[in-house]
C-alpha cells in the first residue's frame, strides 16, 4: 500500500511524507477489507477528471473555481482519482469550505464516471449532491429537495456512503444530517462542484482526523452485522450443526496429529475418529522429524511406513532431499549432526515447536502469541493428567505395531521412543538442557544451536502451509539411535558460532557427497519427467549456500530458517493423508479458506457488508 501511494504522488517534502504516512495508516485502519491493488481508494481529486473551470492545488486536495460564474452553465465539477470500493462497507470523506466565494453555489456529493463535469453534482443521472446555497439535496435531478441547513465559509461538510444498504448521509460540522439518498448505484466517485468565482474547498480523504465520529458509526454497523451472523437462524438443524462442528474440530486435531487431544475430544463428544491411532502417531512422528530439521530420518521413516509414497511422489522426494541438503548445511540433519555431536538429545533445534500452532492464511500475528511465548507448555490443549494416561495406552499400541514392523529395519526408534513417549507428555523442551549437560563442550554448542534457531512463530508470512505439532515434546521420541548412523564419531575441535555442517569435516564431506547424489537425482528426474524449473531453482538456491562463508547471513540464507520446514512438513503430511485416502486438508481449514474467499467475492460483487464480516474478526 505504501509503495502504491508513493507511486501515485510525488514525494520529497518531509511534512507531506508524514501526512502521506498518516493517510495510509488511517485508510488501512478505516477500510481494512479493501484490497488496494484491486480497488484503490480515493486519495485526492483527479487532475484529469475535471472541468476546465476547476483549479487544483495543495497535492490536488484544494479545489478552486476559475470560470466566469455567470450562470449555471458555468458550473464545474471534479471527481476523485478512484471510485469508492464496495469493500469499504462504510466510506466517508469531508470537505471544508475555505471560502464561499461570490454566491456560495457549492455542491458536495457523488457521481459515476462519465457524468458531465460542466454541472454541479446532483443535477444529472447517476449524480448526487448537497448544495450550500439552499441546503437542498439533489438526487439526479435539476430540482432539489429540502434536506439540511445551508453551509458556508468555515463549515465542514462530510459525506458518508453506506455500501451495505446503499444510502448516503451528510454531516455538517460533525453533526449527522440524516439520510439524503437511497438506492445508490455502485462505483461512485467523491465529487465536488463549484459555480461562482472565489469558491474554494479543501478535501479530507483521511489526511486528517475527521470532524464527525465515523468510527462510531462504523462500530454500529459492525455490531449489526456481527449480530446478524450470530443470530443466523438455524432452526431445527441445531443438532445437525453441532455434529458438523464437532467433526470439524475432531478432524482438525487428527489432521495435525494432536492425538491425545483428539481422543479426549472424541470421548467427550462421543464422536468417532476416522483414522486409527497408529497412523496418526506415525504422521506426527514424521512431521516432528521434518520440523526438527532431521529430514533424512523423516525420509527414512516415510519410506518405511509408507513404502510406495515417495516413489509415487518424486517431486516431493526431491523437495525433501533438497531440504535435507539445506539441513546438512545447517548442521541439523542427523546424517551430519550425529557426526559432530555426541548427544543427539541436545539437538533439539526446534524448541519452539511444541508451541507451534497452525498458521492461518491471514497470518494474524496474535493468533500465535500464546504458542510463541510459551515454548515450555504443551500448547495448553491437553491437561497433563489426561494426556499421560492416554500417552500410556498410545505408547503400548505403538510399541506393538512397531514391533511388528521392526523387522523391516534396524534403524527405527520405535521401541525406545514408545517408552519415552508415555512419559514425556508433560515434559517440556527445557528438559533438553539437562539432557545435554553430559558434555560440557557440546553443551555450549548445543545451547548455541538452540538459541540461534529459536524463533517466535507466527512471524513468517504465511504460505498456505500449516504446520502442526502435537502436544508431545519430540526430543525424546526423536532420540535417534546413534547406532544406525553414528559410525565413526570424529569429534573435532568445535569452535563457537554456527559453522557449516556443525563445523565437522566428515560431515562436510558427507554433505558434499549428498549434494552430488541430489544433483544426480535431479538429472534423473529431468530425464524421466522433463525439465522442471522449480527443481532447478531449488537446487541452485540450496547449493548457493556453499558459496558464502556465513551461509546464515547471505542472500539465500533465508532457506536455513527453521520456519522454512513448515511448508514441506505440511506437504508431506498431506501426501501421506492422500495416500491413506484421507483429505489432504482438514475440513476446518477448508471452511475457513472458503469463508475468506466468499468475503473477498462479496467485495467483488459489491456487497458492502463484507467489510464487517471478515473472517479474522471471528478468529480469536
Amino acid at each position, binding site marked *: 500500500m505504501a509503495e502504491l501511494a508513493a507511486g501515485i504522488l510525488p514525494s520529497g517534502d518531509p511534512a507531506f511524507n508524514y501526512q502521506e504516512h498518516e493517510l495510509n495508516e488511517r485508510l488501512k485502519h478505516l477500510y481494512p477489507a479493501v484490497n488496494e491493488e484491486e480497488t484503490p481508494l480515493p486519495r485526492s481529486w483527479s487532475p484529469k477528471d475535471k472541468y476546465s473551470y476547476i483549479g487544483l492545488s495543495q497535492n490536488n486536495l484544494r479545489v478552486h473555481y476559475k470560470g466566469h460564474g455567470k450562470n449555471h452553465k458555468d458550473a464545474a465539477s471534479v471527481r476523485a482519482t478512484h471510485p469508492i470500493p464496495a469493500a469499504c462497507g462504510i466510506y466517508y470523506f469531508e470537505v471544508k469550505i475555505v471560502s464561499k466565494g461570490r454566491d456560495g453555489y457549492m455542491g458536495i456529493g457523488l457521481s459515476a464516471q462519465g457524468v458531465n463535469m460542466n454541472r454541479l453534482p446532483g443535477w444529472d443521472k447517476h449524480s448526487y449532491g448537497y448544495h450550500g446555497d439552499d441546503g437542498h439535496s439533489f438526487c439526479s435531478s435539476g430540482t432539489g429537495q429540502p434536506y439540511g441547513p445551508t453551509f458556508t465559509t468555515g463549515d465542514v461538510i462530510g459525506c458518508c456512503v453506506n455500501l451495505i444498504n446503499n444510502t448516503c448521509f451528510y454531516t455538517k460540522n460533525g453533526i449527522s*444530517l440524516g439520510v439524503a439518498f437511497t438506492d445508490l448505484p455502485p462505483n461512485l466517485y467523491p465529487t465536488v462542484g463549484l459555480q461562482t468565482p472565489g469558491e474554494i474547498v479543501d478535501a479530507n480523504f483521511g489526511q486528517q482526523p475527521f470532524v464527525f465520529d465515523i468510527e462510531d*458509526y462504523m462500530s454500529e454497523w459492525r455490531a449489526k452485522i456481527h449480530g446478524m451472523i450470530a443470530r443466523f437462524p438455524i432452526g431445527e438443524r441445531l443438532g445437525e450443526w453441532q455434529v458438523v462442528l464437532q467433526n470439524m474440530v475432531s478432524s482438525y486435531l487428527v489432521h495435525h496429529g494432536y492425538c491425545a487431544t483428539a481422543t479426549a475430544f472424541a470421548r467427550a463428544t462421543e464422536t468417532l475418529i476416522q483414522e486409527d491411532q497408529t497412523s496418526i502417531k506415525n504422521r506426527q512422528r514424521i512431521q516432528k522429524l521434518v520440523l526438527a530439521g532431521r529430514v533424512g530420518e523423516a525420509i527414512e521413516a516415510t519410506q518405511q511406513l509408507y513404502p510406495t509414497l515417495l516413489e509415487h511422489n518424486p517431486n516431493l522426494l526431491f523437495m525433501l532431499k533438497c531440504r535435507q541438503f539445506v539441513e546438512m548445511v545447517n548442521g541439523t540433519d542427523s546424517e551430519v549432526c550425529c557426526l559432530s555431536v555426541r548427544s543427539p538429545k541436545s539437538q533439539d533445534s526446534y524448541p519452539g515447536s511444541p508451541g507451534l500452532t497452525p498458521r492461518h492464511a491471514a497470518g494474524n500475528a496474535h493468533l500465535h502469541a500464546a504458542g510463541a511465548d510459551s515454548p515450555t507448555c504443551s500448547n495448553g490443549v491437553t491437561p497433563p493428567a489426561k494426556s499421560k494416561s492416554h500417552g500410556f495406552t498410545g505408547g503400548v499400541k505403538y510399541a506393538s505395531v512397531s514391533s511388528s514392523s521392526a523387522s523391516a529395519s534396524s534403524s527405527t526408534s520405535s521401541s525406545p521412543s514408545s517408552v519415552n513417549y508415555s512419559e514425556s507428555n508433560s515434559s517440556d523442551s527445557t528438559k533438553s538442557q539437562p539432557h545435554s549437560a553430559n558434555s560440557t563442550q557440546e553443551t555450549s554448542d548445543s545451547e548455541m544451536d538452540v538459541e540461534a534457531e529459536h524463533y517466535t512463530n507466527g512471524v513468517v508470512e504465511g504460505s498456505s502451509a500449516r504446520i502442526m505439532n502435537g502436544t508431545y515434546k519430540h526430543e525424546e521420541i526423536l532420540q535417534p539411535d546413534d547406532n544406525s548412523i553414528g559410525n565413526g564419531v570424529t569429534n573435532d575441535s568445535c569452535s563457537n558460532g554456527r559453522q557449516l555442517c556443525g563445523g565437522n569435516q566428515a560431515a562436510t564431506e558427507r554433505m558434499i557427497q549428498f549434494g552430488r547424489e541430489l544433483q544426480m537425482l535431479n538429472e534423473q528426474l529431468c530425464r524421466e519427467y522433463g525439465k522442471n524449473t522449480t527443481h532447478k531453482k531449488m537446487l541452485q538456491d540450496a547449493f548457493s549456500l556453499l558459496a558464502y562463508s556465513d551461509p546464515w547471513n547471505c542472500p539465500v540464507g533465508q532457506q536455513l530458517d527453521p520456519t522454512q520446514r513448515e511448508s514441506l512438513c505440511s506437504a508431506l503430511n498431506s501426501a501421506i493423508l492422500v495416500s491413506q485416502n484421507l483429505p489432504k486438508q482438514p475440513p476446518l481449514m477448508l471452511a475457513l479458506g472458503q469463508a475468506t474467499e466468499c468475503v473477498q467475492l462479496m467485495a467483488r460483487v459489491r456487497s458492502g457488508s463484507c467489510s464487517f464480516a471478515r473472517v479474522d474478526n471471528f478468529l480469536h
Partner: protein
Amino acid sequence: MACLLEAPLRISVLSEVTATSRHYVDRLFDPDPQKVLQGVIDMKNAVIGNNKQKANLIVLGAVPRLLYLLQQSSSSPELRTECAVVLGSLAMGTENNIKSLVDCHIIPALLQGLLCPDLIFIEACLRCLRTVFISPVTPVQLLYTDPTVIPHLMSLLSRSQRTQEYITQIFSHCCKTPEHQTVLFSHGAIQNIAPLLIYHSYKVRMQALKCFSVLAYENTQVSMTLVNVLVEGELLSQVFVRMMQRDQPIEMQLTAAKCLTYMCRAGAIRTDDSCVVLKVRLSADLFTLIIVGASLSNVAPSSPTQALPCLVRMCSKEHLLEERVEGAETLAYLMEPDVELQRIASTTDHLVAMLADYFKYPSSVSAINDIKRLDHDLKHAHELRQAAFKLYASLGSNDEDIRKKITETENMMDRIVSGLSESSIKVRLAAVRCLHSLSRSVQQLRTSFHDHAVWKPLMKLLQNAPDEVLVMASSTLCNLLLEFSPSKEPILESGVIELLCGLTQSDSPALRVNGIWALMNMAFQADQKVKVEIVRSLGTEQLFRLLSDPDSNVLMKTLGLLRNLLSTRTHIDQIMSSHGKQIMQAVTLILEAEHSIEVKEQTLCILANIADGNAAKELIMTNDDMLQKIKHYMGHSNVKLQLAATFCISNLIWNEEDVQAVVNSDCAHKGSQERQDKLREMGFVDVLHKLTQASDPNLCDRAKTAMQQYLA
C-alpha cells in the same frame, strides 16, 4: 384454612386443584425438618412457571408458613434458602401475588434475613426482594422504614456478583424522590456503585448505570459529585460517553445519555462545547485547579453534545417504542434551556420529520396483520404522542426557524389541535406545551394558528382542566390575545373575559399571572367596549386586590393592565371619572411602598397616562402630595424613573391644540396655562432645566420638549 375458602369466587377453582396444592402446604407442617425441606423443594419445582399453582398456594396460606420457616433460626440454612427461593418464585407471578406477599410482611422478614452470614441465603433473599421491589404495586417506602437497611445493603454490595446485581436493581427502582436520593447518596451510593460501572458482567454494569440515572435526576448535589468521580482513573462522564458508543446495547446507550443529561441539567456539565469557549474556559479552570484544587467539572464539556446525537438516534424508527419515548423525553429535557442545543438537534438526522412518525401508531398495517402488534401499538400510542409533543415544544421554544420547520411538518397543526382534546391528560398537557412553544412566534400566530382555529380547542381545554394544563393553556392564550393575533377577535367573542377574570382569583400564582396577563394583552389598544367589559367583569375590588398581590409578577401585569386601560384620552377620562379616586389611592400606595424599580416605573407610566387625560389631569394637579412625589422621581438616581416622571410632567403642562380640544380650546388653553404656572411655582421648571443637561439623551430630549411647552 377453611376460612380462606369463604371467598365465593375461588371455590370453584379451588375444588379442583386444592387437593394437590394443599398437599404441598400440608408438608410444610411436617414435624420432621428433613421432610419439610423436601416439601419446600418439591413446592419450588411445582410453582416454577405456573401462575395458577402460585395463586393456589398463596390462597392456601403457604406464605406465612414459608416466612415462619425462613425466619426461624432453628431452621437449617438449606431450608431457609429454599423458602426464600419459593417466595421469590411466587413473587414472579402476577401483581396480585406481590400484593399478597407484601401484605404478609414479606419485606421486613427478608430484610431481616440479610443479616444472616450465609451468602447463599442472602442472595436468595435479595433476589426475592428485588422481584418484589421492581413491581409497581410495592410501596418503595418500605425500603426506607428501617434506617439500618440502606447501610447494610451498601455493605453487602461487595459480597458477590449477585448481590451487586440485585441491590443495584433494588436501588434503581426504589429511588423515586429527592429524599430517597439523599438517603442513598449520604450512605455512599456513589462511591460504592461507581466501580460497578466497569464490572465485567453486563447486568451489573447496566443496573449500576440505572442507579446513577435515578440518583442524578434533578439533583444538583449528586450531579456535582458525579462529575468528579474517577473510575480507575477515568472521569465518570467519560465512562458514560463510552457507554453511549453505537456498538453498545441500546439500553445502555440510552441510560448513559440520561445520566449525562441529568448531570447537564443540574448544572454539573456545561452545555456548550464549542472549541473556543472550551479553550478559554480550560485555561481559567486549570488556574483555579492549581490554586484551590477545585473540581474538573467544567473541563469535561463535550458530553452533552455527545449525548444529543445519541438521544436523537434513539428517536429513530428502528428502535423499540419504549426506547423512542424515553429518548424523545430525555432529549426534550436536555435541550429545554439551551437554544444552541435546540438548533443542533433540529438539524440532526431529520429529527423534526422523524418525530412525525410518532403519530402513526397504531398504523393501519398493524391493525390488519397482527392483533398482538396492534395491542402493543395501542398501549404506546399515547406515550409516543406526548413524547413527540414534548420534544417539539422543547425544540421550538426559542428559535423562529425551528418553529417554522415544525409547523410545516405534515399535518402538524391538525395533530396539535386533536391532541388538545385527547382523553389522556398527558397528551393534552404535552400538546398544549407544544402549542405554547409555537405561539411565541409572531408569524405562526398570524398564519397557522389562525388557519387552524387553535383557539377553539384551547378555549374548550380552559373550561375544565387540571391546574398544570390550565397554566400552559392560559399562557398560550396570552399569546393568542396579543394585538396582532387574528385569533384575538373570535376569542373575545367566545366570552373569554369572564374566564380570565376567574383565573385571577385562583390560588395558583402562575394562573393569576396568566389571567391578568391575558387581560392586559387584551386591553392593549382595545375598543372602549372591551375595556369597559374588562373593568366591569373584573371589578375594581379584585383589581385593587391584585395590586397588593404578594407575587410581583401579578402586580406588574395588573399595572400593565391599568396602563393599557388608561390609554386613549376619552377612555382615560371615562375610567378616571368613575374609578379615579381608588386608582390614585392605589398609585400613591405603590409609590410609597417598597417596590422594585420596574414596578415604580410602571406606576409612574400610569400616572403619565392619567396626566394625558383631559379631565383626569386635574386629579393629579389637585394632589400636591402626588406632585411632590413626581418631583422626587424626576431627581431619582434611576434614569428610567426620571424619564417616566418627566413624561408625566410633560403631559401635565402640554399645550392642548389637538382636535379633541378644539371645542373647548379657550378653556383648555387656559387650563394649561394655569397648570404651567402652578408647576413653575412648585419648582418644576428648575428641575426640568437641570434635566436638559442630563447625560441620558432620552431624558435630555424629554426635558427639552417639556420646556418648549413653556415657551409656546
